Every structure is written in structure tokens, then in C-alpha cells.
């Protein structure tokens, strides 16, 4: 009899299993495919490894500017195979690391599909496992909408999902990306930087609908400047092999690509749980503030509960669920979950957008500061972007921070921790930020929210 069985070995599940073991529980983890889930194997990590390669390529192309001579641009060649090998090595090392951690912490790992018999019984192959608590962490998979011809194109290997894009044999000459969410934007960045002619088709009027409008539009403009073709207000009609037929401004237009990347959202893996009597909808399994489902002692964490699709949130939910199993009443403040986009430059945000804060009725002060007025940004030759702080007026409490900058994803944690402690713009302004760093823009924007920034 286990204290906890976790089904699904992604960043939600494996973290939950390790945490449970660390708290002294007898824990098992069931995974049907690869330990590490989407995140380590076909998500966060492989994409970031490839993006790094693309970034290095872009820097090499700018060698002259940085005073490095002797690079024959015409002789440069993308060795996609080597890029893939490096990516695979990184993934392998991390997956092995996680396996080691599971072992070290004494988690029993069962490889195979977990079949949900009842809330206390999980069957894996010929093993019947019994448990007091169950954590469902089965994750998500791409949604493939019912567009005429799309399945056929996928069967022919022309239309692909993000997983397929990570396993291509070569860098495609032309690629059409369906969808304008985070994953689409990251792949557009990647392939555009590697020389692919990318066309991104977006249903609504701009990319990145969950991102603060000002940042999303700034990035959209920058992507276009960098050569990505972005078609907004575009209704998909039909796919004919390598051709996507759609309607834009009332006219039928078509775009073709060697590959068509389908990135139109993801759906929860909820199949096979009928026997548990768990309540779920299209978005995912319903949970309460403590991540417990309608069935007592059964929890659902990560992508499968449909809140957000973020690996760090999956992990945090894993820890939280386990703490609740241990009797603590632990919950997550979903207003303080950061999200990142690894475009060039990066976007990172936490808290409310300007629009959300106004909608919620806050008396809002908005302060912005551009990278172009920051010494480090100029010294690095990376001066595109800005920071935007949204605070409420009475105390100056920070409600949201949005950053567009080359290292935005490393910078946002300052904002997360500040907001975790209900920090105000006064605190951030008073904290001496080192010079010269990009993080000074956060301090300057905080000054601007109180009074005036110095350098603008």
C-alpha cells in the first residue's frame, strides 16, 4: 500500500513523487513513455537548447559588428544534425538526472500505462498497485482541430506538431505555423533565425492573446522586422497537402510551406478515468484550491487540470498537492505565476496586465522604461525592449510586471519574489540594483511609478 501514487512523470508528477518521498511518504510514480514528460523531452528543454543554437548563429552573423573578422557568411552552414544531437544530449542528461533523483529519494518507478481501476488501485502491466492517495499528472497533448485536409497532411508528414518540429531531418526552407501562442512564437523565432521563411497564421488581431497587449504588439512588430510573415485575422479553411487555405479580410488566400506546424492549443489527457468518477470538462480535471478533485484523496496537477500550461506551475502544484496530502492546507496564488516566451528578445511577465488591472477596478499607475536608455543594454548591443510596471496607487503595491528584454526570463523572478512579499514600487526603487545591468530598468520603472526615473 502506497501513501501516494503519481500517474504521469512530467514536471508535475516527478516533482510530486520526489517531494512526497522527501516528506517520508511511500511513493510510486507511473510513466508510460519518458520520465520528464513533455517538458523535458519535447517541450521546455529541447526548444531552449535549439533556441540557444539559433542565438549563437545570429551572433556569428553579427561578428563584424563585434569586431571579429574572418567569417565568410556564405560558407556558414547550419548543421541541424549536430544541433539535434546537442539537444538530445541535454535532454538525456536531465532525464537521467531526474531518474537518479527518483531513485535516491526512494520513489518506486513503474514504466507503463497506468490504468485507473478505482481511486485506490492503479494497474501497470501485470502489477496491481494500491494507494491511499492518488495524484493525476497525465499532462496534455496538442489539439488537432477538425480542419478539412489537416489529418491527411499530417499523415503525409507535412503537417506536424511541436514534437515533430523537434525531430525534423532538416531545416525547412518554408514553414507555415498555425496559431500565434507561445509555442508558435518560439518556433517562429527559432526557424526564422535559422533561415526558414516563416509564415504565422493567427486567428485574432494579434499574437499572444494572454500577454499584455503592448508587449505582444512590440514583439509582433519586431518579428515582422526580422522577416517573419504574420497574418492576423486569419480564418483557417482547408489544408491541401502543403497548402493552407484561409480567409483574410473576406478574401481567400493561401500559404504553403515545406512543413506546416500545427500549434493551436493543447488538450488534457483525461482518457480512461471514468471509473474514478472524476469531474472534468474540455479544459481539464476540476480541482479545488487544494488541488483535490471531486473525489476525496485524488488530486490533479499540471496541464491536466487545465489552469495554465506551464512547467513551473505543474511542479509547484505537485509540491502543493503533496503538502496537502501531508495535512498542510497549502494553496497557490495563481496571480503570481510568471510566464515566459523565449523569443529574441525574450518576454516575461507576472501578475496582471494593464487591461486586467483596470478591469478589476484598481486605481492604477503604469510606469515604463526602455532598454535603449540602459547602459548594459547598449554595451551588449541588445537595446530592444522595455519594462512595464503596473501598481495600485494607494500603497504602490505591484500588480504586474512585464518585461521585453534579451534576458527577460532571468529578470522576472525579481518581480515574482517582490509580489510574493506584497512588495511596493517603493521597495523596488529603494533596492540598489547593480550597475551596469539590465535589471536597472526595473528599478528605474519603479522610480517612475513613484515620481520620475533618473535616466529618462
Amino acid at each position, binding site marked *: 500500500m502506497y501513501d501516494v501514487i503519481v500517474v504521469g512523470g512530467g514536471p508535475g508528477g516527478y516533482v510530486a513523487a520526489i517531494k512526497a518521498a522527501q516528506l517520508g511518504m511511500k511513493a510510486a510514480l507511473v510513466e508510460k513513455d519518458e520520465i520528464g514528460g513533455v517538458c523535458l523531452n519535447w517541450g521546455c528543454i529541447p526548444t531552449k537548447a535549439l533556441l540557444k543554437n539559433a542565438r549563437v548563429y545570429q551572433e556569428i552573423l553579427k561578428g563584424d559588428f563585434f569586431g571579429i573578422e574572418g567569417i565568410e557568411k556564405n560558407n556558414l552552414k547550419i548543421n541541424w544534425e549536430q544541433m539535434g544531437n546537442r539537444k538530445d544530449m541535454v535532454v538525456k542528461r536531465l532525464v537521467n538526472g531526474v531518474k537518479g533523483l527518483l531513485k535516491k529519494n526512494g520513489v518506486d518507478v513503474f514504466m507503463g500505462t497506468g490504468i485507473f481501476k478505482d481511486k485506490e488501485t492503479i494497474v501497470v502491466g501485470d502489477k496491481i498497485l494500491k494507494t491511499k492517495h492518488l495524484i493525476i499528472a497525465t499532462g496534455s497533448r496538442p489539439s488537432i482541430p477538425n480542419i478539412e485536409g489537416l489529418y491527411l497532411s499530417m499523415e503525409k508528414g507535412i503537417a506536424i506538431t511541436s514534437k515533430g518540429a523537434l525531430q525534423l531531418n532538416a531545416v525547412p526552407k518554408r514553414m507555415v505555423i498555425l496559431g500565434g501562442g507561445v509555442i508558435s512564437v518560439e518556433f517562429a523565432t527559432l526557424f526564422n533565425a535559422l533561415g526558414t521563411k516563416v509564415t504565422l497564421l493567427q486567428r485574432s488581431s494579434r499574437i499572444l492573446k494572454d500577454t499584455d497587449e503592448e508587449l505582444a504588439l512590440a514583439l509582433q512588430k519586431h518579428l515582422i522586422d526580422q522577416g517573419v510573415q504574420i497574418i492576423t485575422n486569419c480564418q483557417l479553411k482547408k489544408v491541401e497537402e502543403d497548402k493552407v487555405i484561409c480567409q483574410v479580410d473576406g478574401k481567400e488566400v493561401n500559404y504553403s510551406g515545406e512543413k506546416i506546424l500545427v500549434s493551436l492549443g493543447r488538450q488534457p489527457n483525461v482518457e480512461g478515468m471514468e471509473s474514478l468518477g472524476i469531474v472534468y470538462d474540455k479544459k481539464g480535471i476540476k480541482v479545488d484550491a487544494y488541488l483535490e478533485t471531486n473525489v476525496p484523496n485524488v488530486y490533479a496537477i499540471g496541464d491536466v487540470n487545465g489552469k495554465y500550461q506551464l512547467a513551473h506551475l505543474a511542479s509547484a502544484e505537485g509540491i502543493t498537492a503533496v503538502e496537502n496530502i501531508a495535512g498542510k492546507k497549502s494553496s497557490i496564488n495563481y496571480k503570481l505565476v510568471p510566464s515566459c516566451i523565449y523569443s529574441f528578445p525574450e518576454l516575461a511577465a507576472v501578475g496582471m496586465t494593464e487591461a486586467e488591472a483596470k478591469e478589476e477596478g484598481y486605481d492604477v499607475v503604469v510606469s515604463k522604461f526602455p532598454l535603449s536608455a540602459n547602459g548594459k543594454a547598449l554595451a551588449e548591443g541588445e537595446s530592444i525592449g522595455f519594462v512595464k510596471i503596473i501598481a495600485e496607487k494607494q*500603497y504602490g*503595491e505591484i500588480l504586474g510586471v512585464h518585461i521585453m528584454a534579451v534576458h527577460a526570463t532571468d529578470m522576472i523572478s525579481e518581480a515574482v519574489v517582490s509580489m*510574493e*512579499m*506584497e*512588495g*511596493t514600487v*517603493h*521597495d523596488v526603487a529603494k533596492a540598489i540594483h547593480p550597475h551596469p545591468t539590465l535589471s536597472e530598468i526595473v528599478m528605474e520603472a519603479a522610480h517612475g511609478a513613484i515620481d520620475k526615473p533618473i535616466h529618462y
Partner: protein
Amino acid sequence: QETVVTEKRKVLATPVARKMAHDLGVDLTTIRGTGPGGRVMKADIRAAAERPQTITTVDS
């Protein structure tokens, strides 16, 4: 007779909680924080301000 030595604990409170406590006349040292590590959060101050005042008699 036993003498009770109450250790003078430092109050961990968020910046907003401190200001709000000041504005609402709540004594921070009387609040049990619900934040990480027992930190007093603004919600704790609001709850304390809404609680009916209890009259305490102090023996000298």
C-alpha cells in the same frame, strides 16, 4: 511562582501589511501571519481590522 519570559519576536510583515496596519491602527505584534514563514500579509491585517475589538484587562 514561575516567571514567563516572552521572547521578543521580530515581526515579519509585508510592506503593504505594515502600511495597512498603520492606517487601520492594527498592532502588528498581535497578528499571527499566514504568509510564508509566518509573515503577516495584508489579508491578515484586514481580517484583524474587521474582527470585533476585544477588551483586554491587563494586570499590573
